């Protein structure tokens, strides 16, 4: 499998509170307080690859850092550490501020969660889809119109809807506009940030099947971010599970869901409502996640909330270890490897 995207040791840290101005920093130096503000470790030392033609899922609860990671990958924000290599080129070397004008901008695109939010309310469907074509492909006039219409048809959007504004479109139609805009420039990697979260289940089916088809037609790789594990299971080849800024498990989607190795993944899988519940008592994950601010590098991020917490867990951070095609960051992952279907 050819590697398309190689993410290595990426971290992103944010200072808590507003950045100190020069005067405040001076005062701090004299008052003896720490010159640096505490930091939120939104993404902490994340590494993974996406192959050509693969669909990789990214799951995790809110606050796990997946939004931040996604924004770093799509070069909307800069990383604090690490490299993001697309093909041969390390994209992280160019600042996010100026990346909009970069020649590789079109290679990574994104479909947003709420197409109503991500399309300018004053833009018609046509304007929205035409924008990247104008800026990145320099198309104008007749060529532009033709391309927009081709893409719209490819996404199942009737041409007469192109003159409408987002608020005049249904949820499914808006989603199609968002997708059409993202694929218009034929990206190599498409990041989908919960693209069907706001849609009815019947519309979701159609959109997911559309995404499946487009992937083959255009030959893209997908990074599919979602909290809905049932959808991730259907669409993704591989899945990454994030918790508090770290990847805690990864592997083929089927394996991860049938036999999760990390306790957090186990709790996640156990919490998903199933149509056919066998009524078995499920593992329940209570409490709040640990603070992401200046976390102790020696304590497992899941410690305290994990049903299983030993002294080892609070003195040594578990590293992501390989088990064949799978990886898990838990000292006790082997124990779960042996189990067939898990219910606890």
């Amino acid at each position, binding site marked *: 499998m050819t590697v398309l995207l190689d993410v290595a040791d990426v971290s992103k840290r944010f200072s808590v509170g507003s950045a100190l101005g020069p005067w405040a920093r001076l005062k701090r130096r004299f008052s003896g307080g720490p010159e640096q503000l505490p930091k939120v470790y939104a993404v902490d030392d994340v590494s993974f690859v996406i192959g050509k033609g693969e669909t990789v899922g990214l799951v995790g609860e809110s606050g796990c850092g997946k939004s931040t990671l996604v924004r770093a990958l799509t070069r909307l924000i800069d990383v604090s550490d690490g490299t993001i290599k697309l093909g041969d080129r390390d994209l992280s070397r160019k600042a996010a501020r100026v990346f909009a*004008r970069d020649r590789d901008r079109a290679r990574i695109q994104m479909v947003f969660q709420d197409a109503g*939010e991500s*399309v*300018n309310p004053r833009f018609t469907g046509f304007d929205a889809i035409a*924008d990247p074509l104008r800026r990145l492909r320099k198309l104008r006039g007749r060529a532009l119109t033709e391309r927009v219409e081709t893409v719209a048809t490819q996404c199942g959007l009737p041409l007469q809807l192109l003159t409408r504004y987002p608020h005049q*479109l*249904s949820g499914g139609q808006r989603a199609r506009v968002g997708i059409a805009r993202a694929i218009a420039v034929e990206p190599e990697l498409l990041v989908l940030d919960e693209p069907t979260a*706001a*849609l*009815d289940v019947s519309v979701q089916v159609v959109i997911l099947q559309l995404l499946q088809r487009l992937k083959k037609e255009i030959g893209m790789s997908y990074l599919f971010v979602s909290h809905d594990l049932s959808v991730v299971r259907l669409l993704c080849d591989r899945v990454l599970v994030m918790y508090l800024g770290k990847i805690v498990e990864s592997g083929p989607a089927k394996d991860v869901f049938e036999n999760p190795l990390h306790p957090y993944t186990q709790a996640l899988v156990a919490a998903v409502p199933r149509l056919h519940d066998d009524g078995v008592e499920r593992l329940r994950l209570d409490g709040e996640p640990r603070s992401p601010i200046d976390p102790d590098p020696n304590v497992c991020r899941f410690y305290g909330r994990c049903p299983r917490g030993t002294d080892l867990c609070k003195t040594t951070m578990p590293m992501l270890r390989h088990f064949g095609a799978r990886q898990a960051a838990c000292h006790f992952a082997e124990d779960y490897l042996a189990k067939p279907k898990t219910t606890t």
Partner: protein
Amino acid sequence: MTAITATPRPEGGSAALFKHARYVVAENPVTGFAFALFVLIVLAAVIGPSIVPYDPLASDTAQALKPPSAHHWFGTDQLGRDVFSRVVVATRLDFFIAVASVALVFLMGGLAGVAAGFFGGWTDRIVGRIADTIMAFPLFVLAMGIVAALGNTVQNIVLATAIVNFPLYARIARAEANIRREAGFVEAARLSGNSDWRILAFQILPNVFPLLVVQMSLTMGYAILNAAGLSFIGLGVRPPTPEWGIMVAEGAAFMVSGEWWNAFFPGAALMIAVFCFNLLGDGLRDMVDPRRRT
């Protein structure tokens, strides 16, 4: 998610706006009234000077201080000038002051505010300090000061009004730009290859404009009152130019002796105009704010 399937009515932006405008006006008769009044004022400003019965500057001391009659609908002032003609002709000047002030403050405050909200950092700090400095003064005193320092011409009155209203516009524009800075469509625009400046000009500004338009209508009323106030204390327009404020100022002295029409009619005109602009502001806000639509 819309519950009702969108009906096939492809509407362009202006067609939809017009239709909605008609709806708002129909729903709320007061807004309709304000619109009608506004049209009347504009008409008076544009064609008024051409159709008034008397020359507003022509004095005829023999006819001084005559009460309202068939010849002089609003009576005459102390120099025998027809009050009606002066009130109508003054509309043009006052309206011009209102429109010019508002246009100027929109450009200054709107652009500064949007830049401050979008870029943050030093731009935000500088604009913020300027706004704070202006707000530190009682606004009318500041207007007085500016006009007194620069001389009382119409241009300076317009400038003073614009400066005094700058913080308000900058603040509104800044708040809107700040909210939208993180909006999904701004990120999408970056992904589509738009530089920050393009986003500011083509994505943010069009969204900020409607809110400022509502404010502009209200500021028009304020601008006229400001000019009138300045004229009242002698820092505004100079006689014999007909302007509502100065007419009220000159006519006030005669109220005591019973010649009420000198001050009353220009005062009433002032009141009606400001009233109209304020109502217009309400109506515009209903039109512009989609959340208030049922």
